[in-house]
């Protein structure tokens, strides 16, 4: 069962179109909501006037003044209002919401609202905050900061033979799920409210909306509906929309839904944080690493929201999977007057992985060591200390992934042959060819004590008739969680996959297994479910053994049948019926606790940042047109260690999808901020995602270095594939042309500019 390509449980309904997403669900009397947005990036609200040729008595209109309870959205930091009250901090910030019988009427009414503002000076871009950061400008508002490390960096750099310094920047990235953000609030007969929609984390939405409505959690429940993708974009943002529709539904006494259109979704929902990373490193002549000093600035956007944790994860991974005798990391997220940046697959790591892996190639070059050898020599090993002073104890696959990558890609030979300095003869009519390598890691599960704080709870019901039902708050967003979790349970219990299902995710019925984020669902939630399934199996065998007067160790469950050695004792359902007696079902519950040996100090960011890490390598091959600098990527190879593969096809899908998303990040995706603070590319015409024709052949190799506490040894997988492609592509472009572009995306325009600058430099 573990290791089988079980078909996705949602595949059929997605293929024939019968699956209903949030916008497809009908309610009698449903109204539609739209948002009135602030016209300026920064300033004080002076008036909200309901103007126009609109009969406002026939609509529902709400501002911050209508909020009965907490005015700010409950998240990591509770600093963002549901609706701006006094201060507006980004262009397009919601200041009021409207509900009307149709979406068009709601939108028309919103356009008729005049919002008056007294402008204040706005800070809009990463460039601005980096310039101020370097000057030590006190104007900057810190949203979050962390610093950690060990050793005296200045002394170590002083002693190093070679010091290399560099700065790298990355842009916003849009999650670009197919289904835009959508939420519905439905008043219920008992006076409560149901909030449902496209959301990753029902137990984030429930307390946030309940606090806003000033009702108890018994009066508010949240349902996660089938989702057309999320990638972190539906981690914190649904709490905002959920608040808006709940407020309107309560005022209207009827169901209210909001569905963002694509340009609204791109322009105002959360993005990946733009980042600037300044790295100073020292090495000995032979290429042995001596010290790293890393300074990180994230553009947090208008509110802190998730920035503290995104920044933390980014910073922890910033030194890369390398042994640094001395390392110091300082990371800060500043406020800009642009929409808040938040969660996106990789959670801060794609930025810092791009920086450190670009930098490692440069350092290797100066040390005159080949890039793969440089990484192999300096990789983290068991017993090594990470930047947070975590000593790695097990499941370190750094050597395996690097060596396997060399084998399957023939990297060393290609690297020596191709590239501007390669041994191949260069035909100037043919595209410039290069190959690049990146090596990366990803902490699985929440950072530090996060999993202890969440203390994930899961439940498993064995039901009369033999059905096995999983109850968790972990959602299916297209990643396959509701197929893989049953696989883990079916495997442990000994029943067919078809017999196990995941209950609809509704906070009224499912325990809080934590948010569906951080590559934690299979590893943490799956791990606890495996425990429940083993408990359930033991209970059933014990009860059967008692009835048959045998020793329970002599019994087993295989493919839904009880066995005593070779003897078939009847179906699982029959024995379950006997064991349940008059009860309809029996529930098994578990709660996650951190392994006792894990120690973490949040304030100083020292200790065991993650229970375990996954390891990966990416090799990118590029062909660059010598006239237009268009980058073609014939092949990307990913070698990843995931502990244990539960479902190879789904796992491969995760790696391929994440790699393509990373390719877009590397080569073409860019939102951009206009002079007025609006995000510029707010449609799929202008925000350039790779199409199938831009997609390379993605070769995936998976290794299994088991993690003792994961189900069957599994570790997290969802995010890691996002870390590798950007630096591998940057390194490949450098290899091909001899110029390094240090800010993503690696557009033909930037490569051209870098080549022109290099030519000008050579001729002067």
């Amino acid at each position, binding site marked *: 069962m573990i290791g089988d390509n079980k078909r996705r449980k949602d595949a059929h309904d997605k293929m024939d179109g019968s699956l209903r997403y949030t916008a497809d669900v009908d309610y009698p009397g449903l109204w539609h909501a739209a948002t009135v947005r602030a016209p300026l990036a920064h300033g004080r609200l002076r008036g909200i006037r309901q103007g126009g040729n609109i009969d406002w008595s026939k609509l529902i209109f709400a501002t911050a003044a209508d909020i009965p309870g907490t005015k700010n959205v409950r998240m990591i930091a509770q600093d963002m209002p549901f609706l701006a009250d006094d201060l507006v901090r980004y262009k397009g910030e919601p200041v009021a919401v409207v509900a009307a019988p149709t979406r068009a009427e709601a939108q028309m009414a919103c356009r008729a609202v005049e919002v008056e503002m007294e402008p204040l000076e706005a800070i809009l871009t990463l460039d601005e905050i980096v310039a101020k950061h370097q000057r030590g400008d006190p104007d900057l508002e810190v949203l979050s900061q962390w610093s950690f490390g060990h050793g005296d960096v200045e002394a170590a750099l002083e002693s190093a033979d070679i010091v290399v310094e560099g700065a790298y920047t990355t842009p916003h990235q849009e999650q670009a799920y197919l289904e835009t953000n959508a939420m519905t609030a439905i008043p219920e007969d008992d006076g409560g409210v149901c909030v449902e929609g496209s959301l990753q984390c029902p137990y984030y939405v429930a307390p946030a909306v309940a606090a806003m409505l000033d009702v108890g959690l018994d009066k508010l429940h949240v349902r996660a509906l089938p989702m057309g993708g999320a990638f972190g974009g539906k981690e914190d943002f649904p709490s905002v929309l959920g608040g808006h529709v709940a407020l309107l539904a309560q005022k209207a006494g009827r169901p209210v839904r909001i569905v963002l259109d694509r*340009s609204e979704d791109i322009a105002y929902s959360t993005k990946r944080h733009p980042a600037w990373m300044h790295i100073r490193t020292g090495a000995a002549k032979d290429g042995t690493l001596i010290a790293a000093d890393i300074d990180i600035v994230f553009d947090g956007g208008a509110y802190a929201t998730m920035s503290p944790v995104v920044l933390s994860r980014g910073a922890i991974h910033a030194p890369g999977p390398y042994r640094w005798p001395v390392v110091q990391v300082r990371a800060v997220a500043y406020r800009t007057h642009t929409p808040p940046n938040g969660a996106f697959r990789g959670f801060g790591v794609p930025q810092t992985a791009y920086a450190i892996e670009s930098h490692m190639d440069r350092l290797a070059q100066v040390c005159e060591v080949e890039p793969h050898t440089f990484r192999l020599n300096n990789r983290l090993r068991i017993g090594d200390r990470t930047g947070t002073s975590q000593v790695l104890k097990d499941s370190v696959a750094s050597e395996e992934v690097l060596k396997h990558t060399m084998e399957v890609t023939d990297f060393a030979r290609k690297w020596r042959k191709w590239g501007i300095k390669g041994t191949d003869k260069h035909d100037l009519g043919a595209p410039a060819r290069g190959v690049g390598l990146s090596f990366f890691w990803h902490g699985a599960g929440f950072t530090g004590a996060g999993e202890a704080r969440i203390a994930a709870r899961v439940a498993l019901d064995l039901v009369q008739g033999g059905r096995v039902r999983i109850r968790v708050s972990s959602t299916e967003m297209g990643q396959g969680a509701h197929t893989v979790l049953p696989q883990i349970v079916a495997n442990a219990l000994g029943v067919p996959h078809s017999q196990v299902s995941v209950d609809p995710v509704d906070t009224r019925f499912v325990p809080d297994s934590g948010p569906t984020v951080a590559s934690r669902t299979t590893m943490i939630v799956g791990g606890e479910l495996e425990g429940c399934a083993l408990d359930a199996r033991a209970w059933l065998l014990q009860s059967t053994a008692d009835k048959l007067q045998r020793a329970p160790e002599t019994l087993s469950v295989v493919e839904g049948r009880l066995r005593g050695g070779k003897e078939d004792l009847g179906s699982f359902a029959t024995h379950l019926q006997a064991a349940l007696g008059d009860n309809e079902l029996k529930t098994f519950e578990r709660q996650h606790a951190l392994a006792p040996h894990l120690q973490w100090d949040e304030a100083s960011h020292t200790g065991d940042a993650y229970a375990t890490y996954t390891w990966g390598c990416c090799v990118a091959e590029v062909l660059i047109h010598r006239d237009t600098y268009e980058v073609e990527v014939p092949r990307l190879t990913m070698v990843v260690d995931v502990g244990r593969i539960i479902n190879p096809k789904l796992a491969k899908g995760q790696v391929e999808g994440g790699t393509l998303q990373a390719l877009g990040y590397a080569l073409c995706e860019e939102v951009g901020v206009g002079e007025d603070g609006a995000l510029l590319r707010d449609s799929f015409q202008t925000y*350039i995602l790779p*199409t199938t024709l*831009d997609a390379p052949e993605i070769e995936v190799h998976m290794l299994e270095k088991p993690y003792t506490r994961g189900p069957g040894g599994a570790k997290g997988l969802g995010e890691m594939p996002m870390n590798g492609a950007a630096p591998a592509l940057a390194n490949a472009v450098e290899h091909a042309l001899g110029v390094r572009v240090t800010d993503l995306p690696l557009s033909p325009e930037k490569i051209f*500019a870098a080549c*022109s600058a290099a030519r000008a430099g050579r001729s002067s």
Partner: protein
Amino acid sequence: MKTFTAPERLDEALTLLGEASPPTVLAGGTDLWPQWTATKTKPTHVLSLHRLEELRGITRAGDILRLGACVTHSELTRSPLVQAACPALAAAAATVGATQIQNRGTLGGNLANGSPAADLPPPLFTANAEVELHSRRGARRVPITRLYRGYRDLERERDELLVAVHIPALPSGALERFWKVGTRRAQAISKVVGACRLALDEKGTISHAALAFGSVGPVTMALDELASWLVGKEPTPEVGEKAAQLASDAVQPMDDIRSTADYRRHVVGRIVKAWIVELATLNR
């Protein structure tokens, strides 16, 4: 949308267009619909061209190819007549959007929409095509090179319908090329788009030259001065390099959401150079 009319006869359509507030002309709708979505507006009266036979079909009479305004990109791509008489146009149509857009989008819509980044005008410029405009007042032909007066400003009266495009066929032995640099490999609007028609005489000197580029100015630009400069010269690498320089200087690109002016100038030059180099190979 309040009224939707789809006449079968051209004169009916022209009558409607002659009214005081004429309807919006709809062909494939691939430009119009996104515009309606973006502006959250819909016209009150739409005149659909899909039943008008006169606006369909690809025919050739002698050296002239006639294309109905409602010929789709897919039809342009697949037509052996187009491939022979104006291969650059067939190539251009094959780069428009992707399959769905090519099946719906039309030649007439591409020209009438007036985008400086449209892909079909450059090959029509270099082929010296004419567009046939009809109104209640009569019919006239306008050289495509005079169709665009300024940014999205067309030499087309409100009551006129674009009915057909007439293209002088590529003479045998001549070279015609199309080159598009888009934002990605499909569903891409051009950063630079260009076409050329070039011919050599028996001595190996350039006897005919026409070059045009889109997305590098407010309208599609014919590089006429460069073309005159090229005629009479041999397509040597040096001539190619000089031509590249002249082309880069002639275009008027901007920095915008898709690309930069510097990059566009550079790419225009490299494309011209590549064409001249290829032309030289015709000699051998």
